């Protein structure tokens, strides 16, 4: 029997506001344990949370980017469970009335566009981190992360394959980066993913029993964990067994999922509205202001760039991968208005250099103006395209401009006609036989003569010009 996978994703995204969601502590990563804490995020007696409105703003940006309806009144709820990384014994989250609902996101897999529904987006606070002593039965708690703002984005069970799941996650990451609300880094935990997956016979409408996969911290592992789970559930079903509804952990080292035990068992979180926080009203003025601040999003940008510059889908994929990449491209085109040439140079040469240097476009040592300057020198014949690749590499490593490098190393092509004519005359005088053969109709000899001119000029002559002038001289 053929089975179809039904996948829904719950994605947590850490928002990069300067301060935490309910206290003024910084959110920066990597500080000494428990130094980014205060009585509020440690959950001391008597202290009270005060909402950071920037968090609401960031969350609204995400909600608008995935076409959600925004709730005019936002209520925070307490979600209770005991764990040492949760100092208050409850997490402030949203339950009955999330910030946003009923959205969608288009993804593309194998050239096919699919629309994935977004069930809800809500705001909440992150928990701390536990570190277990390897030698003694002792654990340590670091509460620096406690209270860092999160949004949880819950998808509809609209995803049908591991590839689609990865495409969805990459699209989310691209969006949060475009919006500037998170770095979306899965490996560092600023984007985390839980997956609900069930199988059903192809063509069936109802859902099968699902398992929930946790602890998946890269795109590759999402793919592998889902593939594993599809194989596991398929085997069970083919064998006539039932899939058990349970939470399973992904073991990246062994490449398997296994059932969770202990604290992760079914919880009664006893949600109720947090009486320490007043409902947040999101009025239309606020919403309008945020909407106006939204950057051009990837899909819209792609359509515009295609229309405006006529670029290929392949190039567009690279140029719209991030906002900075697109900005780089447009910054360069503004100074050197040949979009296809600019696109080629970015997508091939620059991307290769960035990849080699493990750099992002944001930190690229060659500015858009710098690249435009280089391309201008090819265009006016000062240098050849081949030389330009070498010069770009030097620009990348030395941060010098193309002009500086060309001047320092005397790389400019010889394009001055009177100078070139002198060289050509000299070459013709030195090779009378070849000149004769050419004039007798053996025009192939031209290549040899051009080569001689290039040799005389140590490669700096503009080959196009040499061809042109030599032909003129040979056919008086």
């Amino acid at each position, binding site marked *: 029997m053929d089975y179809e996978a039904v996948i829904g994703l719950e994605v947590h995204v850490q928002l990069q506001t300067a301060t935490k969601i309910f206290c003024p502590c910084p959110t920066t990563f990597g500080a000494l344990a428990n130094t980014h804490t205060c*009585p509020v995020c*440690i*959950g*001391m*007696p*008597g*202290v*009270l*949370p*005060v*909402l950071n409105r920037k968090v609401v703003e960031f969350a609204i940006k995400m909600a608008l980017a995935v076409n959600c309806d925004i709730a005019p009144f936002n209520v925070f709820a*307490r979600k*209770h469970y*005991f764990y*040492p990384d949760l*100092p*208050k*014994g*409850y997490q402030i989250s949203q339950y009955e009335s999330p910030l946003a609902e009923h959205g969608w996101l288009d993804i593309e897999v194998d050239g096919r566009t699919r629309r994935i529904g977004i069930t809800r987006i809500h705001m909440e606070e992150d928990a701390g981190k536990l570190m277990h002593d390897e030698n003694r039965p002792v654990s340590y*708690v670091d509460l620096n992360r406690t209270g860092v703002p999160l949004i949880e984005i819950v998808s509809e069970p609209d995803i049908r394959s591991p590839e689609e799941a990865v495409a969805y996650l990459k699209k989310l990451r691209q969006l949060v980066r475009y919006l500037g609300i998170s770095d979306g880094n899965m490996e560092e935990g600023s984007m985390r993913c839980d997956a609900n997956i069930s199988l059903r016979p192809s063509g069936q409408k109802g859902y099968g029993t699902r398992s929930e996969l946790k602890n998946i911290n890269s795109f590759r592992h999402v793919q592998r964990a889902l593939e594993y789970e599809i194989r596991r559930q398929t085997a069970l079903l083919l064998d006539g067994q039932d899939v058990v509804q349970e939470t399973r952990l992904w073991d990246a080292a062994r490449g398997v999922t296994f059932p969770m035990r202990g604290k992760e068992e079914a919880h*009664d979180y*006893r*949600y*109720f509205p947090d*009486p*320490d*926080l*007043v409902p947040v009203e999101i009025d239309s003025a606020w919403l309008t202001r945020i909407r106006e601040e939204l950057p051009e999003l990837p899909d819209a940008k792609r359509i515009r760039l295609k229309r405006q510059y006529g670029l290929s889908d392949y190039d567009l994929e690279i140029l719209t991968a991030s906002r900075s990449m697109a900005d780089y491209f447009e910054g360069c085109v503004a100074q050197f208005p040949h979009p296809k040439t600019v696109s080629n140079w970015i997508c091939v040469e620059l991307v290769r250099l960035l990849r080699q240097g493990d750099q992002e476009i944001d930190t690229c040592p060659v500015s858009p103006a710098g690249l435009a300057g280089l391309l201008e020198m090819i265009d006016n014949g000062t240098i050849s395209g081949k030389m330009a690749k070498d010069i770009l590499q030097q620009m990348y490593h030395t941060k010098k401009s193309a002009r500086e490098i060309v001047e320092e190393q005397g790389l400019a092509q010889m394009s001055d006609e009177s100078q070139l004519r002198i060289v050509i005359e000299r070459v013709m005088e030195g090779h009378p036989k070849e000149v004769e053969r050419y004039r007798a109709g053996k025009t192939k000899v031209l290549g040899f003569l051009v080569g001689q001119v290039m040799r005389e000029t140590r490669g700096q002559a503009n080959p196009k010009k040499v061809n042109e002038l030599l032909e003129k001289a040979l056919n008086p």
Partner: protein
Amino acid sequence: MSSLTDLSVHELHELLIKREVSAVEVAKTYLKRIDEVDSKVRAYLTLTPDQALAQAEEADRCLSRDVEEATPLTGIPMGIKDVICTCGVRTTCGSRMLENFVPPYSATVIERLEAHGAVMLGKLNMDEFAMGSSTENSAFYPTHNPWDLERVPGGSSGGSAASVAARTCACSLGSDTGGSIRQPSSHCGVVGMKPTYGRVSRYGLVAFASSLDQIGPITRDVTDCALLLNVISGYDPRDSTSIPRDVPDYTLSLIPGLEGCTIGLPKEYFVSGLDPDVERAVKTAVSALEGQGARLVEVSLPHTEYAVATYYIIAPAEASSNLSRYDGVKYGLRAQGFKDLTDMYKKTRSQGFGPEVKRRIMIGTYSLSSGYYDAYYKKASQVRTLIVQDFRHAFKDCDVIAAPVAPTSAFRLGEKVDDPLQMYLSDIFTIPANLAGIPGISVPCGMDHNGLPIGLQLMATHFGEQSLLKAAYNLELAMGPWRNWPAV
């Protein structure tokens, strides 16, 4: 000099600004009196004599520099309920759980008092985590009523009310979640106000039931109440539920005459079960208010009978959540000899909390559980809305509602400890104001046949503290100044 401790805050202030007495002398006199009588009353859990003398010296410097700089609280010795965080001074909440907890921050009200030059004598006893009506639920020891040491002072702010009556502080702060300021004030013959929810910052008040808790003053007379309210009121950006609204000078409401003021008597509050002495005292007080020019009307608060049940769903639900943080991980008690994490939680919470706190955590946990939430917590929230509406309707017909504070005067120590339900009913008349978020005040209005004080409760609409103070002040005028303090 022992008569110094008999003076009200405003009387003491007069002496201080005339430099007839120094703040240090006042503080020393109070510390001496605490030394003499607190072994009987047991109102204090922690004394801070060094801090008190240092603050008094600072107050004297201020007073001798420029009397104009002095505030009505400069050099006034106060006691603070031990549920209000005081930076560097242990704050126990009357619980073993926080027996050694020293907060690294002060409540906003404490910062305000300090900025006004008040002197802190120490921290006052209370029912554990403010849960109780007799102060017998303190994990350390019960407080005794200064009028009759065999009797409870009421609760949960029993230490705060008893110390004001016993003159071991000039005035104090309490907190009121279901009557915890008004009921002990009534039992101890002092003035106690629960302000409108949101009037006073809760930052640094250890939470019992966040949507009901409010800090308020406990004082010898109504003038002192207004003076203290002036200082502790106002918006605090650290408390999202505090309300950005100007604070009037509440002493301006202390004017004789109640012409134009209508006082409502809720018929549901004058029912069987009300002690005859209490009923008589309350009716006498109401007549006195009428004598000051007030018009009396009967009003109805039809959902009163559901108030206690509603309260005992909402307050424990919030408490069960608020008290989750006491888990032995970060501060406070951690039990010894546990096997694993769950065992640490169980042992810590079993040893750290007393029976009443455990009872309420269990009630609250139950009522928030899935499957029960709608029937309990959600339903209670709906009834709470009806109670709010009751008051809204009643305040269309009157400015102030007058009622008993408690069904009886102070009961005997041990009398109700084994009967939680009876204990819960002590708050039957005070709970509705907390559910509605409106202000209420208890003003002494008479004595029962045992010579125990009885208070009159006055309630007003949201931010109607001025009407309350005016009515309370007129009661004080009509009944003569309250001067017969218990001997102790």
